[in-house]
């Protein structure tokens, strides 16, 4: 770490300090050494953390994924791709995840866009920050509790009971894909609104006026200017939500009731109940690979859309 840090430090010491010509020349070597030592010390805790709790665990499950399940559960050393070949055994979980993650992100987007648009371009100036804060505040309460509240709303005593009053009987809402979708939109809406808001807020309003002055209808101004320029924010939000959804566990567990389950549910089952660690590891590795592919594709699309301009959320 300090070796690689050596060169640019040297550059800094000569190139970056042009204005500081008063530096004495002889303690240079010693101060260089001290600078590198300081750099190494600054980076050491983070590096150690990343290696011990990110790289090593990942290597561990990679090794496990080519192993075998021990008779009493757990892991037995082997070199086999049997676990990967067995992936179709959890096809339903993969199918649910791969369908509901993009559909959920899309549903989220359709709800989020008008809200972000209103906040950025239509809301009165003095209300803007308050409304924005109100989007974020639900984040500060436990997602578990909020999803639990949905279990109540969608469950027997909630909406179905209300609908029974007006004559609609035996409506089943909870433990359906629809309930999971609703939970997804609910849980991830703020994450989708914020990046779109940021890209809309930066939009140069003179472009809208120019478009109208040149005779464009409001719709074609929206499609040609507003929507187009907010696409980077849309892509950021979409890929963020989609990536997080791939590993979702709580929402399908609570609102899908074991009928609509995701890869996350399969992983919890394999690690904590049936204790088939090698198979679980193979699924986990596959999940990470899928996430990486999604990220790369999303990055490609957003680079193309925005003409090589990237917008990061953080």
């Amino acid at each position: 770490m300090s070796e690689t840090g050596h060169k640019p430090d040297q550059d800094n010491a000569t190139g970056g300090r042009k204005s500081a010509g008063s530096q004495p020349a002889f303690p240079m070597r010693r101060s260089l050494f001290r600078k590198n030592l300081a750099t190494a010390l600054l980076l050491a805790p983070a590096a150690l953390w990343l290696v011990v709790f990110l790289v090593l665990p990942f290597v561990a499950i990679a090794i496990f994924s080519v192993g075998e399940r021990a008779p009493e559960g757990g892991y037995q050393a082997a070199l086999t791709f049997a676990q990967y070949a067995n992936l179709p055994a959890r096809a339903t979980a993969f199918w649910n995840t791969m369908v509901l993650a993009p559909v959920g992100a899309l549903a989220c987007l359709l709800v989020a866009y008008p809200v972000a648009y209103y906040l950025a371009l239509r809301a009165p100036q003095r209300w803007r920050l308050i409304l924005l804060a109100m989007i974020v505040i639900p984040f500060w309460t436990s997602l578990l509790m909020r999803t639990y509240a949905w279990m109540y709303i969608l469950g027997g005593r909630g909406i179905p009971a209300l609908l029974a009053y007006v004559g609609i009987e035996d409506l089943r809402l909870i433990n359906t894909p629809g309930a999971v979708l609703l939970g997804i939109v609910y849980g991830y809406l703020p994450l989708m609104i914020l990046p779109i808001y940021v890209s809309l807020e930066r939009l140069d309003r003179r472009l809208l006026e120019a478009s109208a002055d040149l005779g464009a209808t409001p719709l074609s101004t929206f499609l040609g200017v507003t929507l187009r320029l907010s696409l980077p924010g849309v892509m950021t939000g979409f890929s963020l939500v989609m990536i997080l959804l791939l590993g979702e566990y709580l929402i399908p567990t609570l609102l899908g009731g074991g009928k609509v389950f995701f890869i996350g549910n399969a992983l919890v089952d394999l690690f904590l109940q049936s204790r088939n660690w090698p198979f679980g590891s193979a699924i986990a590795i596959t999940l990470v690979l899928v996430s990486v592919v999604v990220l790369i594709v999303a990055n490609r699309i957003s680079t193309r859309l925005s003409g090589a301009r990237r917008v990061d959320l953080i």
Partner: protein
Amino acid sequence: MRAFVVAVFAFLYLPIALVVLFSFNAGHHASEFTGFSVQWYGKALSNPFLVEALKNSLFIATTSALLAAFCGTAAALGLQRVGARTRALFDALLGAAIVVPGVVIGISTLVALVQLFAVVNPFLASVWPTDQPPRLSLGYGSIIAAHGLFSMALVTMIVGTRLASLDRNLVEASSDLYATPLTTFHSIVLPQIMPAVIAGFLLAFTFSFDDFIIAFFVAGAQTTLPIYVFASIRRGVTPEINAIATIVLAASVLLVLLAQWQLGRRKPSP
């Protein structure tokens, strides 16, 4: 469009309103409102398991967020001084720590730690002079470390962004005026990155306090608040849980307002 936005806000706040409403329920279940009462607040705060879970969560969130704020800020500062290759390597790892799903972080940490303990514990037992050697096991330490991984990456990115826009002329001016590097750091750099560090700390705290899935895997015998709530959803929730959730909500809104006020107050001064 306004009606739609109002509907979305109603959608966002309806479940929260229900959680708060049922915390004042007189009845025994969180599913039927039978009258107003604050008894569940008393019951919640005298339930030793619930209070223990809350304390654990507060301790874990504080410790992991503090560690993340320190190590993440240090890393962001360090990354300013290294070459492009080291930087790219760090950025890739930090990005991975943020992007890899929590469920995968949870299981891989579990797998790695169980293997590690299987090697370290017999070794400790063989070299320890007394009969009771220390035994490493899952618990506070593993939850703090696993939460801290994500949080540290988050803090590094937030503080890194702030450092990138820092006015370098001030730093140069300070060293031209013979300030030691430490003085420069303390009086120029630190005040400018402090809002980012605080924002990172708060995000890290909330993340850890709210996380269920990572803790579920690496908690061992410990219980955090989300784990307790999850278990009680399985058993059937009493308004106790609603009371705790309401207390937490009130506390966090208060904290956010306080933080906003602090940041707002700090802005005008250079």
